[in-house]
């Protein structure tokens, strides 16, 4: 018989477990503690060690101008939804206790983010986009918090709807955010996560998406802040002809630790997915990407591609990539690749030979590395807005 002697509880565990609103939701964590590197899905982010103490509270940011001018702004401020007039085609309401009771259970014993969030969440936003509706302007949901905050968004996109939603994570302290996306048949949705929390913040996020027949989800994740960040993505291609697309840009500086973990399941035939994550590591920052693509036995003709590319700009930083394929169907095209490299000396020489000083040349090349991904966005305003944020990050950390 194996006897597992639990490690002593950390202050963070005590706060998270004893302070839970819904103790039942956090039962697994109570028994096992926060995941350590021995838990496979947390191997690169030893949460128990990295989150020994919850971070101190910070100031809650005031209203922010949206990332993309002209967006409709909704806010969840320190966990409390501030519902304002919603744009045409969207129905917005607070989740309330009934909404929270209806949320799906965490994925399992290792789903620390799902458990913490469900055990603590006070309220959230329900967002429903009507069938056939096309939102003219993006909707920006601002998660603004300074004290420990657990927020939830439950979004349903009706059949054939079109929408761009920006999930903006701002502020400091400790935060979890879980967004459940249900993408109806034929809907085409862009969900853009802009995580810009302060350099002491701990943020644990989850985007959970289910795609219907011929649905398209374009998920874009930009991590440009935070001290300890894990963004999980759990997506199910559940309808034939559905297309999932993840593009991620992780900008890591100082002593930041940023983890993007994706599990993607192709459940039915004729679905496709591409995932491309680009990372820039400076200073003593550390990052990880885990990508798991599962193809069910009946999911023939699946086309799934995954790539993780890292530009390492410092000897003290590091990045780990773990792509995995689990394929039970026999007629599929799946592939993955991961690279970690430094700035290409040939490229650097070429730019410098044209008179561009070394620092500026490096800046151009680093920006180019991630701009390639941003430029794939089919929205000029958004490309510009994100590139502007890149420039700002590089001038602060370059």
């Amino acid at each position, binding site marked *: 018989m194996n006897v597992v002697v639990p490690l002593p509880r950390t202050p963070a565990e005590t706060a998270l477990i004893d302070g839970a609103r819904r103790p039942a939701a956090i039962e697994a964590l109570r028994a096992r503690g926060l995941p350590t590197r021995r838990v496979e899905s947390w191997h690169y982010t030893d949460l128990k060690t990295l989150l020994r103490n919850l971070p101190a509270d910070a100031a809650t940011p005031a209203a922010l101008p949206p990332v993309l001018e002209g967006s409709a702004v909704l806010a969840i401020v320190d966990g409390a939804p501030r519902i304002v007039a919603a744009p045409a085609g969207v129905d917005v309401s607070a989740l309330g206790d009934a909404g929270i009771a209806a949320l799906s259970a965490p994925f399992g014993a290792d789903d620390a983010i799902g458990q913490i969030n469900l055990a603590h969440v006070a309220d959230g936003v329900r967002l429903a986009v009507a069938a056939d509706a096309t939102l003219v302007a993006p909707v920006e949901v601002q998660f603004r918090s300074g004290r420990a905050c657990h927020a939830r968004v439950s979004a349903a996109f009706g059949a054939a709807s079109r929408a761009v939603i920006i999930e903006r994570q701002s502020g400091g302290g400790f935060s979890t955010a879980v967004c459940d996306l249900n993408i109806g048949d034929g809907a085409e949705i862009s969900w853009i996560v802009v995580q810009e929390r302060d350099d002491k913040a701990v943020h644990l996020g989850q985007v959970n998406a289910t795609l219907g027949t011929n649905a398209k989800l374009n998920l874009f994740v930009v991590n440009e802040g935070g001290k300890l960040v894990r963004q999980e993505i759990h997506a199910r291609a559940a309808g034939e002809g559905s297309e999932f697309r993840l593009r991620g840009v992780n900008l890591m500086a100082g002593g930041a630790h940023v983890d993007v973990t994706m599990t993607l399941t192709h459940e039915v035939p004729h679905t496709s997915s591409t995932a491309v994550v680009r990372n820039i590591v400076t200073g003593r920052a550390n990052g990880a990407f885990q990508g798991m693509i599962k193809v069910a036995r009946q999911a023939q003709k699946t086309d799934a591609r995954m790539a993780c590319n890292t530009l390492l700009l410092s000897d003290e930083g590091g990045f780990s990539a773990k792509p995995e394929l689990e394929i039970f169907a026999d007629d599929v095209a799946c592939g993955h690749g991961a690279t970690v490299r430094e700035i290409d000396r040939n490229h650097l020489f070429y730019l410098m*030979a*044209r008179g561009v000083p070394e620092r500026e040349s490096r800046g151009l090349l680093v920006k180019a590395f991630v701009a*390639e991904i941003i430029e794939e966005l089919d929205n000029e305003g958004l490309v510009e807005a994100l590139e502007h944020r890149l420039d700002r990050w590089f001038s602060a950390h370059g």
Partner: protein
Amino acid sequence: MLEIRNLHARIAENGTEIIRGLNLTVNKGEVAAIMGPNGSGKSTLSYVIAGRADYEVTEGDILWNGESILAMDAAERAAKGVFLAFQYPMEIPGVATMEFLKVAMNAQRKARGEEPLKIPEFLKRVKAAAASLSMNMDMLKRPLNVGFSGGEKKRAEILQMKLLEPSLCVLDETDSGLDIDALKIVADGVNALRSPDRAMIVITHYQRLLDHIVPDTVHVLYKGQVIKSGDKSLALTLEKDGYAQITGEAA
């Protein structure tokens, strides 16, 4: 004036000496052709002049207008007017060609204490230079050199040369990979830049390019040294007899 004096240079990574006591003088207004068999050090010479960090100069000096440029990095040399047209121009995904041209032109202007170019003036210059090289502006909307054919890349190099107006141009096998029409366009582009204030070094394997860019002097490079210099007739002799006779004399 460019003066290269007893230059010795080696590959930094493994210490292999490529340039072994090279002497060469190129005056302003002069077009000097450098020829030589494979492996004689032609491309290395171009890199060492341009300031590539992968090579170390162990002895000798390179003076441009009386000033040693050895301590300068590639960008500082470019600001002093040194330009290398690459044999294999780099494809750089994610860097927009127009943005790059603007950054490069303005970086050099800044280094010389000049104001940055206003956008309309910049566009005017690029359009005029592109037209003179029969280049389509659509090409310049792509990322730098990405998806360009060999000929297009060489034209893009000459375009940059026109826009940056260097005073020392080093063209490394600009003719390689060009068909005869493209060769003519590129050669016309180079000839248009000939001026009493500008020195040019044209590195080539073949006489063919020198029919179009007629050199004032021809130098034969062999085992990292200039072993013979002459006027344009030397290139014709080489084309007829090959390098064997000259390299034999040197051995």
